[in-house]
């Protein structure tokens, strides 16, 4: 009865607000859709970014992507493996329930349930324990330097609502388990979900009771997924949308030239690179020794690619060429590592000759055609450049749906991969997933079969190093080894380009998240 009254009142207040304050609606579109409203049922970065509008984590990233207090106001290490969090008081969920330590504990229990999909993102967290109504302890498996980074992705759900709706156990998009939380989101965040229709659109309305002072002036967000690039651009230009993210690179010039529209850009954290195969033979030359096991050949392959031309022609001067495997804002980056080998086809030919391949050799190059920005074009260019120095390249491109499983099954010689160090936004993820040998839970995406004992030892040391300066030095050292031994060939840092109509001010973030609680529209 009481909740009904509250609901009636809030509707009435909302209606009054609609009359008194000017309605500011943002209509926007992206190629992907929100997969589920259950934050623990998935691991997709787009859905995570959308749900951040509805839920708050204990700590969040601010406008400069630095970690700052959100539902937790302060924290300290009470033991090497125990962190104590003081919670914010006076916070209310969208349905009016008060936020307490019970909600945090219930959320972590739900997230850490063996059937939860997102559990892998917080593998080192053991449990959350209530100390009092506004204090919570979080235990980790031994010392863990990246806990706060992980917590920024853990959204807190309402225990009372979950109890009432039989949603204390998590859904899972992989196993097809759904709960009431899959289609209803009750959080503490800046916006509430008004309607959620997969593929047709999701509407958000502002949460006037949000605990934080809004930095946005929106009253409503209308989101429609539009997969086709051309259609999305057309809808923006014909005035049906206020924002498209991303905007196709080849259309940026036309959009900025159109009166009333502009393009906003930012370098993304995502680095695109080529995986080098370290297996005994290449698929392209069965029965022969893999030439790429020779460092000189790998150096030649790097020297043979004209990255400036790719940047200029394929990426329309929007990308940044790189020599290392992490982007500048990410811990582990160092200017010294970020030195690409120069484009030098003569030197490449010389190196090949020195390595015993004066007439080159054959390799396959595999790339996705719908995953990274202009991925297919980039690969055609690389295939052409390699062929010119004598590395006869057989290029095959395909959709991500078939590409990534094949990459996992090691069916490729050289292949393309992109890495944004998400969710922790830390260089350690490159070490753990791309560089370490594939064993003991490490090397999940090391599809080239790289196995370097030096790298493996450093990775295991960095995993438990709590001293940030020492830890970063280890990351830098490992990435230097990777660069000098040409473990991967970095191509470029992807740009992030959005297009808006005039009067829309939306800040961009290098992690490619859309954070509309910083958006203002005129």
């Amino acid at each position, binding site marked *: 009865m009481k909740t009904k009254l509250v609901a009636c009142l809030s509707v009435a207040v909302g209606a009054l607000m609609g009359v008194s304050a000017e309605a500011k609606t943002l209509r926007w579109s992206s190629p992907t859709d929100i997969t589920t409203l259950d934050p623990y049922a998935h*691991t997709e970065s787009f859905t995570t970014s959308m749900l951040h509008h509805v839920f708050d984590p204990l700590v969040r990233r601010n406008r400069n992507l630095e970690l700052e207090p959100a539902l937790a106001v302060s924290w300290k290490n009470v033991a090497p493996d125990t962190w104590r969090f003081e919670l914010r008081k006076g916070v209310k969920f969208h349905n009016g329930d008060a936020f307490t330590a019970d909600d945090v504990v219930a959320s972590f229990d739900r997230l850490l349930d063996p059937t939860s999909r997102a559990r*892998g993102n917080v593998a080192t967290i053991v449990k959350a324990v209530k100390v009092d109504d506004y204090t919570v302890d979080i235990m980790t498996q031994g010392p863990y330097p990246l806990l706060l980074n992980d917590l920024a992705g853990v959204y807190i759900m309402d225990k009372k609502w979950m109890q009432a709706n039989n949603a204390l156990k998590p859904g899972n998009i*992989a196993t097809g388990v759904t709960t009431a939380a899959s289609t209803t989101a009750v959080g503490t965040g800046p916006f509430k979900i008004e309607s959620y229709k997969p*593929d047709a659109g999701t509407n958000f309305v502002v949460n006037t009771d949000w605990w934080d002072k809004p930095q946005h002036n929106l009253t409503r967000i209308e989101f429609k997924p539009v997969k086709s690039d051309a*259609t999305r651009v057309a809808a923006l230009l014909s*005035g*049906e949308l206020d924002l498209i993210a991303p905007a196709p690179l080849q259309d940026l010039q036309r959009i900025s030239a159109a009166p009333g529209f502009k393009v906003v850009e930012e370098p993304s954290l995502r680095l695109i690179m080529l995986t080098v195969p370290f297996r005994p033979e290449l698929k392209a030359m069965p029965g022969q020794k893999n030439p790429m096991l020779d460092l000189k050949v790998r150096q030649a392959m790097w020297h043979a690619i004209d990255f400036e031309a790719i940047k200029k022609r394929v990426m329309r001067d929007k990308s940044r060429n790189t020599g290392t495997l992490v982007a500048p804002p990410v811990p582990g980056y160092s200017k010294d590592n970020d030195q690409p080998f120069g484009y030098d086809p003569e030197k490449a030919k010389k190196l090949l000759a020195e390595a015993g391949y004066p007439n080159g050799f054959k390799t396959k190059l595999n790339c996705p055609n719908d995953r990274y920005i202009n991925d297919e074009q980039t690969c055609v260019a690389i295939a052409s450049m390699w062929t010119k120095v004598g590395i006869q390249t057989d290029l095959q491109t395909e959709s991500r749906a078939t590409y990534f*499983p094949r990459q*996992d099954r090691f069916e490729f010689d050289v292949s393309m991969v992109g890495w944004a160090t998400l969710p922790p936004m830390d260089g350690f993820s490159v070490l753990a997933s791309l560089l370490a040998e594939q064993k003991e839970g490490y090397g999940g*995406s090391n599809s080239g079969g790289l196995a370097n004992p030096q790298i493996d030892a450093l990775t295991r040391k960095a995993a438990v190093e709590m001293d940030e300066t020492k830890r970063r030095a280890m990351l830098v050292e490992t990435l230097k080894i990777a660069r000098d031994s040409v473990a991967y060939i970095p191509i470029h840092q992807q740009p992030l380009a959005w297009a808006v109509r005039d009067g829309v001010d939306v800040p961009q973030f290098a992690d490619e998240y859309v954070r509309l609680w910083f958006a203002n529209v005129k």
Partner: protein
Amino acid sequence: MLKVLLSRLGQAALVMLVVSAVSFVMFRYVGDPVASMARENASVEEKAELRRTLGIDQPVVVQYGRFLARTLSGDLGISFRNQRPVTQLIAERLPATLELVIIATILSLSLGIPLGVLCALKPNGVAARLVQALSLIGISTPTFVTGIVLILVFAVTLGWLPSFGRGQVVELGWWSTGFLTWSGLKSLLLPGITLALYQLTLIMRLVRAEMIDVLSSDYIRFAKARGLPTRYIHFRLALRNALMPVITVTGLQIGSLIAFAIITETVFQWPGMGLLFIQAVSFVDIPVMAAYLLFVGLLFVIINTVVDILYAVVDPRLRARSA
């Protein structure tokens, strides 16, 4: 008669069994859902675990058996991508596609029949030649090109019509319709025209061929010889006879129109079954793909079986043969 009916229904059931097997087997091999769903930095063990929970580490026959049993009980599984029962998703998307198909059929019939008649009556007139030439250009232009050109002209350059989506829809029970709002009707126009163009030339050519055929038949010559008015001969006698096959073909074509809508729906981001299917393909959403194939297959089988049975009723010779 009952025997014919039963044998046709038996055949239809058999066909559906084959369709279900094909739809299952084919999508078992299109791609690996694990990659779409695994975390970016998932470990090998995690991926194997996921494969186990999805049941796709089982032998194919076991998977097919499960699939068939569930399908017969009306449970088509839960979409990997949308986290909703597939049956519910298809029911939700059906109105959008059917409304598009209805508009396209109305447009193509209302234009195709008069144009076809025109071409048949005055085959060498300027108008007929022009129409013939345009229709040839029409069938020679790929649908995606037509759609993109329409968007460029009417949405981007002129700004008259929306470039994507259904506009505002009204919910009538489980059916959501775009027929009742101005924006809904406007949104229907461009995709409707794009889809209709595919159907239009077919109908026009068919009407023309049938009319020419009928006009050269004996009883029309008789009618002429008897001095009946030309208008009466053309429209009451000839057109009426020519329309029968046109109606049949239009009916038979509804299935392919629904399937062909995949391209139109992709270009116009129309939230119908075709878009559902294409998105399911790129996400390797096996339950949705299998259900879509079953649905389209079922539709064809129903239409073909009904036509077969009707023919058997109408034409006793065929009845004798098929027994």
